[in-house]
């Protein structure tokens, strides 16, 4: 029963992906100028014939619907096209960049959850206390601070002034772990390369804080408000009346139920991280998908941007699917319905 539902949801992702594909394709064409303009923008000694020849080489002179149809056909065959600006296969570029992006996103989520879960619980339990009020003020700050600003401030403080952490990149030259999965932290653990592990962690700290701050703030608020609600429920009083210790009442009874709404929001926040990572990756020179997209947009590299956005779309859909599965798992009412 559950398997069927999951399959249903997964299949529903297909039209969404098609929509994403078409919308990005059209939006990229709405931007003024095309790749050829950008490539030849600086050069003055190019003739119109040469420009036209280049256009037709990349099939840019076909009508829009023909371009779209041929693009979709190629995507269906698993070919994401050729990146003009990087002179490489888009699929290959994305595969190379994906581990960097995922590593950063996971670190950001981990930081966000590590802050949000305990803080959300404590602020709800100590409702209206000093810690509650100050945490809420901080979380307000966290939501309001744009990632690009926070990133720059973090670099200024911790890299420039204190010189504790590196300003950019994933690893110091020469300390890149040998390739196993593409995740530097994981790779350096797998290969037992301690200096590389330390180095990649040091590189990860600032960007993941910059990326995780806003979701941390949002998730703290969600957990707090849903904890405030569950703490008032009869079953929490009842758990106390059974003689259950207070910490167990809070975790097993209140938090377990507060998780249900929190999971959905966390899923959406993780999706939102994808948008944030374009900014953060650009600031920290992180060689991930976000930077690929930004560079791709500036050089009107249609295939690259389209391919990257499709991966974003797929990730977003998958994360929300996982959140939905978790949701049904946490909320037995959605799965088992029969009455005695």
């Amino acid at each position: 029963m559950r398997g069927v539902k999951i399959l249903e949801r997964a299949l529903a992702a297909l039209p969404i992906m098609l929509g994403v594909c078409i919308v990005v394709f059209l939006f990229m064409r709405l931007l003024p100028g095309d790749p050829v303009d950008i490539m030849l923008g600086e050069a003055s000694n190019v003739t119109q014939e040469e420009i036209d020849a280049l256009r037709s080489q990349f099939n840019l002179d076909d009508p829009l619907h023909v371009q779209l149809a041929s693009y979709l056909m190629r995507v269906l065959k698993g070919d994401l096209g050729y990146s003009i600006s990087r002179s490489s296969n888009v699929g290959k570029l994305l595969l190379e960049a994906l581990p960097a992006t995922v590593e950063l996103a996971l670190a950001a989520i981990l930081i966000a959850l590590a802050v949000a879960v305990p803080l959300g619980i404590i602020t709800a339990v100590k409702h209206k206390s000093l810690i509650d009020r100050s945490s809420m003020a901080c979380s307000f700050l966290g939501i309001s601070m744009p990632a690009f600003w926070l990133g720059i401030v973090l670099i200024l403080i911790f890299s420039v002034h204190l010189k504790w952490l590196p300003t950019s990149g994933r690893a110091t030259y020469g300390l890149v772990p040998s390739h196993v999965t593409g995740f530097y932290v994981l790779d350096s653990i797998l290969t037992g390369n301690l200096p590389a592990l330390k180095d990649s962690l040091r590189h990860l700290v600032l960007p993941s804080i910059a990326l995780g701050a806003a979701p941390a703030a949002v998730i703290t608020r969600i957990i707090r408000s849903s904890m405030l609600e569950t703490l008032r429920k009869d079953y929490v009083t009842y758990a106390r009346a059974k003689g259950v210790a207070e910490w167990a009442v809070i975790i097993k009874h209140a938090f377990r139920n507060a998780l249900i709404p929190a999971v959905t929001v966390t899923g959406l926040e993780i999706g939102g991280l994808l948008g944030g990572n374009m900014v953060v990756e650009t600031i920290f020179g992180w060689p991930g998908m976000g930077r690929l997209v930004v560079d791709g947009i500036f050089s009107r590299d249609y295939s690259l941007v389209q391919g990257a956005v499709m991966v974003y779309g797929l990730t977003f859909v998958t994360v929300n699917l996982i959140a939905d599965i978790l949701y049904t798992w946490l909320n037995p009412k959605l799965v088992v319905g029969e009455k005695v």
Partner: protein
Amino acid sequence: MAAPGDKEVLSIKGLQVCYRTDRGPVRAVRGVDLSVREGEIVGLVGESGCGKSATLLSVMRLLPFPGEIVAGSIEVDGTDVLALNGKGLQALRGGTVAMVFQDPMSTLNPAHQIGAQMKEALRVHGLPSTRSVLVDLLKEVGIPSPETVLGYYPHQLSGGMQQRVMIAISLSCRPKLILADEPTTALDVTIEAQILDLLRQINRDRGTAIVLVTHNLAVASQFCHRIAVMYAGQIVEEGSVKDVLSRPLHPYTRGLIGCIPRFRKGVPLTPIRGQVADLSENHEGCAFYPRCDKAVPGCLETLESLLDAGDRMVRCHRYGVPEYGDVAAAQDSGCS
């Protein structure tokens, strides 16, 4: 019903509960004395907001914020409840005293299976929680196919079944006292009778004392040995069920009985006039005075304690005045 023993299981003296709200203190319980003996069933009746539930929650030290016990003493089986904290309090809750709540649908945790919720109660009190123990408990409260029910989530059970599960959990640690806070209010009438039967059977078989909070006088009359009528945070009349309901002395008790609908045609209901006393105000004298038909100027003086009326205790200045014994009217009500 089991004959009550002599040993006191619950002794509440001068209990005062105050909710410190933003709009000033609300004195929900204003000096309650209540004693419950082994094997006794005591009914606590009164309108909503008269302090019945606050009194019960005080015994478990479960008053919700911003409520607090400001005066008085509570002893359960010889233990001073107000001096307890931490482990002692946990041992009391669910151990010596168990509580059955009003609405089983919202009281059982929706995210945990029945078996897990039962197990938890046993485990926190260091009792064995094997499957057979759980099955026996469910059998005792009359749940069909208990093996299956252990794996169910609360929403898969009907309200009556959920309440049985709750009673099974309360029984699990063999408490000396069960506090039942309107245990049948959320259930329909046929189920109500079954649940009350079950509680009565537990009282008879195990000798467990029960305090039943209800606003249903019919339920109280069938179920309790003794009854205490509360109004505005005070007990206004207390005695054996038979005496109090067939020959009520306090005007409020009589008013309550007058509010019970009757089957006989053409007998109008006689509601108590006025509004329930506002507990955020200080009441000089009798709290029921503004609504009382029999009030005299003396009612404005505060009565320090209930007056001994021979077969019961009453908090009324006019107790003993001849025209008071209007027995016939009360007997008409069919409550005897």
